[in-house]
């Protein structure tokens, strides 16, 4: 296993995810090949056996997510990864994990869709990830890295948050972040106090209570009580775990907002705008669930113009609009995902200029 050091290494986003999973103590990986995330299972199939871990190339994404469910129920740190079509198949298992209060990390390297779509980058699975992609009304933690360094750091964070809040956590990126290589520092696993997993199935010894990991609630009021419990957990997440990055927002007349790959492209567009004398800033949510609503609300007290940019026809923009002050405008600019639709910094700069002029 490549050990954590402070020396920079040069790796793909997907490889950084795999390395971080190992550093986080994940020793069980279950997956199924799909572009553009296959570097993750390939890396772990090489590394896990030597670490006494388990790698299974499952029969399907359904098989993989249920292996994750089983391993996680024993208390093991476990992970699976996929992309659009495979993530759709995993939704059944994710719903069961959410219903069973099971931790577990799911990596989604988004590709264009619907259907088989294409292998180009996409942000059109924002809804699927953040609104409860399966049945029953639940949420999972969703982290959106925008660099290879964050692929590494947020994967480790996903394991910790997932364990602390007893719910699945997703690392949501796309083929830009997954396939690009950057210089990163492979940080050591953060020292976090984790709750003990007294709920795991382990073989009931004499005198110990029977542990059952289940999502079936038939008793009067049981299901409702479960939902209220989860609602308060989601609230706790919103109170304690929102993460975001702001760039040059303090004097901004226009705040661009974007996550993941498009936030990177926007950063250069914003630098171009600043050079051209425009007061433009960036608000980048890092946690998509919990969504940093209060941070948007605070920004919109002063700045009244937001430009939401996505590699989709508009999904996160709904959450932005629900978060900002009523008198703030949220303009949307997006491109549907697919070959050739990745916006350039020059293109986003044009959007900034057009809207900035309109507001000035």
């Amino acid at each position, binding site marked *: 296993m490549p050990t954590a050091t402070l020396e920079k290494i*040069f790796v793909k986003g997907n490889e950084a995810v795999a390395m971080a999973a190992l550093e986080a103590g994940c020793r069980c990986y279950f997956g199924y090949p799909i572009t553009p995330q296959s570097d993750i299972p390939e890396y772990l199939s090489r590394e896990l056996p030597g670490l006494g871990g388990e790698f299974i190339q499952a029969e399907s994404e359904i098989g993989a997510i249920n292996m994750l469910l089983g391993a996680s129920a024993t208390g093991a740190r476990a992970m699976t990864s996929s992309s659009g079509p495979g993530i759709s198949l995993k939704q059944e298992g994710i719903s069961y994990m959410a219903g069973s209060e099971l931790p577990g990390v799911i990596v989604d390297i988004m590709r264009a869709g619907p259907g088989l779509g294409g292998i180009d980058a996409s942000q059109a699975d924002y809804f699927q990830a953040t609104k409860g992609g399966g049945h029953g009304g639940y949420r999972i933690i969703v982290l959106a890295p925008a660099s290879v360094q964050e692929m590494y750091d947020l994967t480790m964070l996903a394991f910790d948050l997932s364990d602390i809040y007893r719910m699945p956590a997703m690392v949501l990126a796309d083929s830009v972040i997954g*396939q690009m*290589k*950057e210089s990163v520092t492979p940080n050591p696993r953060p020292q976090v106090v984790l709750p003990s997993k007294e709920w795991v199935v382990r073989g009931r010894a004499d005198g110990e209570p029977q542990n059952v990991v289940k999502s079936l609630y038939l008793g009067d009021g049981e299901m409702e009580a479960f939902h209220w419990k989860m609602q308060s957990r989601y609230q706790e997440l919103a109170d304690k775990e929102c993460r975001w990055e702001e760039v040059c927002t303090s004097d901004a007349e226009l705040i661009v907002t974007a996550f993941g790959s498009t936030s*990177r492209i926007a950063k250069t567009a914003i630098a171009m705008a600043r050079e051209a004398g425009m007061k433009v800033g960036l608000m980048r949510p890092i946690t998509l669930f919990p969504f940093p609503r209060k941070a948007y609300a605070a920004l919109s007290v002063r700045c009244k113009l937001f430009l939401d940019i996505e590699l989709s026809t508009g999904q996160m923009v709904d959450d932005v609009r629900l978060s900002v002050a009523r008198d703030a405008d949220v303009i949307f600019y997006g491109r549907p995902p697919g070959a050739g639709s990745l916006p350039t*910094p020059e293109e986003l700069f044009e959007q900034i200029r057009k809207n900035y002029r309109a507001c000035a």
Partner: protein
Amino acid sequence: MRYDVFFAGYGGQGVLLAGNLLSYAAIHEGKNVSFFPAYGVEKRGGAAMCTVVFADGDTGSPVVGNPSVSVLLNQLSFDKYAAKVKQGGICIVNSSLINCDEVDLPGIEVVLVPMNQIALEMGDVRMVNMVACGAYIEKSGALQSKSLEAALKKALPERNHKLIPANVKAMEAGALAARA
């Protein structure tokens, strides 16, 4: 300072290795690097391209619409990408495979380097990407040639380290040709 360079050619010309090499060289100089590859479905013969951005600070967008420098290794890439080079930028062209006689690129410095020919003269046409890297550092001044030598050790697998001296020579020949 923030530098960006775009490499394009067909699969098999070593475009991605060239991008990796420049990335390692930039890391060697303590810079932050983003290397963004794109390629066709085919392993060989399809389109291959990559963008490398390196900077002392934030690398920003890994996607570049109008590159400061483009290094284009075949006709198809030239036809598609030459005109996208930023005004005041540089377009380094593999003149062994690209005919650009009738093309007008105002505001762009076009540098012709017969990369295949030079690589062949150096003993192996597969070193075309090394010739291209040499031409790039010569024209951009963005990286030290010593850093590229160091980068070769990182970018090439151990079993190919014996080829490093030949690759260094190919880079030097590329630099020389670009200087002329």
